[in-house]
Each structure stands twice: as C-alpha cells, then as structure tokens.
C-alpha cells in the first residue's frame, strides 16, 4: 500500500519569501529517504509540501507538482484534508493531544474517518500501538493522559496515531531532535520496521542518523541568507556518504561546512 512520490518543479513561498526553489525528486515506496542539510535550507518546508501542511501557515503557498503514484496532490479537485489523511506526519516535538487519553490519541484520526465500532477501534488502537513499539509499555494505562508519557514514548504515541489511519506515506520532521539517545534508538528501530509497509521520508539534523536509517539521502543547501533552499543531490545513502557527486555535499558530510 506504500506509494511512490514524484515531485517536479516545486517552489514554496512564505508571503513574499521564496523558501525553496525548483525541486524535483522521486521517493521510492517501502524505503526510507532522509533529507539532510544546514538549518534554514528548506528541508522541513519541502517535507511539509508533501502533505500540504505548508499551506496552513498564513500567507504560505506552493507552486509545482507532487504526484503520489498517479494523483497530483495539488490538483484543484483534491481536498488537502484527504491528502493529509493519506500522507501522515510526525513532528519535531511530540504533540499528543494534551487533554486526551493514550487510547483517544490513537483513535482520534479513526474517529474522524467514521470508525465508531468499539471492537474495531480497540483492534486498530492495539495494532497501531504495537506497530509503534509502544503497546507493552502502555497497555495497562490506555485511559491515562498521553501527556503523562516520557518524551520518547510520546513520540511513539504520535507515530501510532499517524499509522492508525493507515496512510500511504509517513513524513517525519526531525522526530528525534527533542529526544534522548535511548529514545532515539527506539524510534530508529521503529523506522526500520515501518519501512516494510510505508514510504518514509525523514528530515534529520543528524548525519549519523541519516546514514543509519535511510536507503536514500537528499542533500539540501542554501546559497545565502534570504535565498531559497535548493536540492543539491539525491542518491543512495551509501553513495552520498562515501562518494557524493557534488562538492557542496562532500563539504557538508565531512564537516567542512558551517
């Protein structure tokens, strides 16, 4: 059920600011693609264009084409709400709904989509929590608030919430940057498991993480402050980290770059 993403000629803007310029790439299904690059290079912005979350920021807009298999996400007839249901997202900081229990957090997306039967909800919640490697830790306190979990558990809860609606693609925006090393490891293990089912795109600041979890890596860069971010190159992760095509990529990988 994972799908291929094909982006062509994509630009994104915040009001008058040109944030990313002319990006084209293909993201393969059932694989992990990592986006790396310096701060402000537009990698998170680009990620958010893949489920039309970019446009929820006032004044933000997108030009270009994003194909999910045969569907253009930005076609006029497409409802962004349907896009976001198909392309799930996990954020930098764990953001469970603070007033909801663990169970309700996972079930939130399902209830929106009209799943009402208790037994069905129970099954999917359990599957999703298992899928997110969280079930064992929380099965006895599903009714407790999600905000009471540790940071790493909260992030896995958010992943469970995202996969509960069975998306085609899972976007992760620096999912480990607010977590300690042990929680990070748990998430990375989870990513390795999830890629058998989903197309995963992960933005990360951490190059070792990109090297550990991803099959392909895309390097983004920015020519200077106020200039739009660009895709420098995308290739197999092993190639990017050992023998990149571009000088800029090599400089960044080897740390010769701010």
């Amino acid at each position: 059920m994972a799908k291929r993403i094909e982006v062509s000629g994509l630009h994104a803007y915040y009001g008058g600011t040109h944030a990313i310029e002319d990006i084209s790439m293909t993201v393969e299904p059932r694989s992990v693609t990592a986006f790396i690059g310096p701060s402000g290079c537009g990698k998170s912005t680009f990620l958010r264009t893949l489920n039309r979350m970019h446009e929820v920021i006032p004044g933000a807009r997108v030009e270009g084409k994003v194909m999910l298999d045969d569907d253009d996400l930005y076609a006029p007839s497409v409802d962004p709400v349907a896009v976001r249901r198909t392309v799930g997202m996990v954020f930098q900081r764990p953001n469970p709904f603070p007033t909801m229990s663990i169970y309700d957090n996972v079930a939130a997306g399902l209830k929106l989509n009209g799943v009402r039967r208790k037994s069905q909800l129970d099954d999917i919640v359990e599957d999703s929590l298992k899928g997110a490697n969280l079930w064992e830790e929380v099965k006895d306190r599903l009714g407790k608030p999600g905000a009471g979990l540790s940071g790493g558990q909260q992030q896995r809860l958010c992943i469970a919430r995202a996969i509960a609606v069975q998306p085609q693609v899972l976007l992760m925006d620096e999912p480990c940057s607010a977590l300690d090393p042990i929680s990070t490891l748990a998430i990375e293990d989870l990513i390795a498991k999830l890629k058998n089912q989903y197309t995963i795109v992960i933005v990360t600041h951490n190059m070792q993480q990109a090297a550990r979890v991803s099959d392909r890596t895309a390097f983004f860069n920015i020519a200077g402050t106020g200039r739009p971010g660009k895709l420098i190159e995308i290739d197999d992760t092993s190639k990017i980290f050992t023998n990149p095509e571009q000088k800029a990529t090599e400089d960044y990988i080897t740390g010769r770059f701010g």
Partner: protein
Amino acid sequence: MSTPSTSLGSVSASRKIKDRLVQGLVYLAFALAVIPLVSLLWTVVKHGTARFDATFFSHSMNGVAGRDAGGGAYHAIIGTLEQVLIASVISVPLGVLTAVYLVEYGRRGRLSKVISFFVDVMTGIPSIVAGLFILAMWMLTLGIGKQGQGFAGSLALSILMVPTVIRATEEMLKLVPNDLREASYALGVPRWRTICFVILPTALPGILTGVMLAVARVMGETAPLLLTIAVTKAINTNPFSGPQSSLPTFIWDQAGDPNQHAIDRAWSAALVLILIIMLFNLAARLIARAYKPTGR
C-alpha cells in the same frame, strides 16, 4: 463537490457539510455582534445630531423643563470632566503604587498575595455597590455632601478605577526586563530611584494606555453617580460643594422624561459621551502603538 477522480479518496460529504456549516455559523455569529453595534452607533449619531448645537454646549438645564426646547448639557459635561479628573488623581497614584508594591517589593509574599486576591475581588464589584459604599460611608456616616456632591461621585468612580489601574500597571511592570533592574542595582542606584527613574519610565506608555482605558470606562458609569452626586439642572463648578450633574446621569434624567425635546437631549448627550470615550480609547491605542516595545 463531485468526487475527485483520484485514489486519494475524498472527505466524506457529511464531514464537509459539517465543516461548512460551522464556518457559516461562525461568520453569522460575527455578523450578529456587528448588528447591535452598528444599530447603536447609527441611532446615536442620527438622533444625537438633532441637538448637537452651540446651545447644547453652552447652556445648562436651569429653568428648562422637559417639554421645553433648548437647554444644554454644559453643566453635565463640566461635572463629568471634573469628577473623572478627580477620580484619576486619586486612583492613579494609589493604583500605580500598589502595582509597584506587588511587582517590585511584595513578590510572592503573603501580603502581596492577599492584596492581589482582593484586587481581583475589587475588579468584580458591581458599580452600583461602589456607589452604595460611598453613600453609606461618606454621606450617611461622615455626613459629608449629604445633598449630593461631585467629589463623592469621584470617590465612587475611584473604587472602580483603582483595580483597573493596578492590573494594567502590574502587567506593564512585569514586562520590564529584569536585566534593566539588575543593571541599575549593579551601578549602585538605590531601589526607589531605580523604580522611579528606570522602571516606571520604561513602563510609562503601557501604564498611560491602561489609565486612559480606565478613564474611558468610568466616564460612562452611571449607577454610582446616581447615588452620590444627586441630580441638578444648574451649573456647579465646585465638586466639593452641592449636587453636580454628569453626562450619564443627564442622559438617565432626560431619557426618563416622555417629552421629545428631553429625549433629543438624551441622545445628544449620549453622542457627546461616546465621542469623549472614543477619544480616550483612541488616545490609549495611539500611545500603545507609538511606544510599542520592539521585538514582541
């Protein structure tokens, strides 16, 4: 909303309808709030201009009966301005000093907690109760201004003004960065000088804005004045002796009279009152904008 020819699936019709429905309701609610505002301002302007003339601003109601044309609100305007001015003179120092105590001295102490609690209580005092209190204490117990007195009205207004001034000043003092205090202490400047010459001036525009809004608020208060200043038709420029008039009580008095001339005067006074209040509100906003702290 035709189903899109994609495999993305679509949002179910009922969810979309619900979303649209709520959007419609929310727009409707806003329109609903604007209707009375527009109606109110429109009628005040329309009827208010009938007697918005020179006589209105230069004459009192002395010797003018409800059914007579003419007459004016000069005495009421004078009364309102004096009463509000005195109320400000009383409540601004009291309010600012209390806020200084709460923020600069009493931080987290027992006394400041108690004061803070009672400031909240004071904010909720119905205006008529403030009037009753001044009636009971000032006029009935101390026996001052038994026949009504402008100053008694000012006292009642002060009770309503003080908590507003305290809260506004408190907010502003809290916004003053701690670095500024420490920098000043580090230079060996005593605390009171730091507060008077560093902290209060920094917070001044915000405090002024708060005071202006408080003034605008009490200017329209009627209930406490009804109990304290008594109603007079004559000009009395001395707030410390004898009954005074005020714009709100003037409106109350004239609106209660069935004659058209009186009702016209009530509308004009309402227009004058709204104009003065808007002026204060506008001034407050301009001050706030002109000195808006950068980086917020």
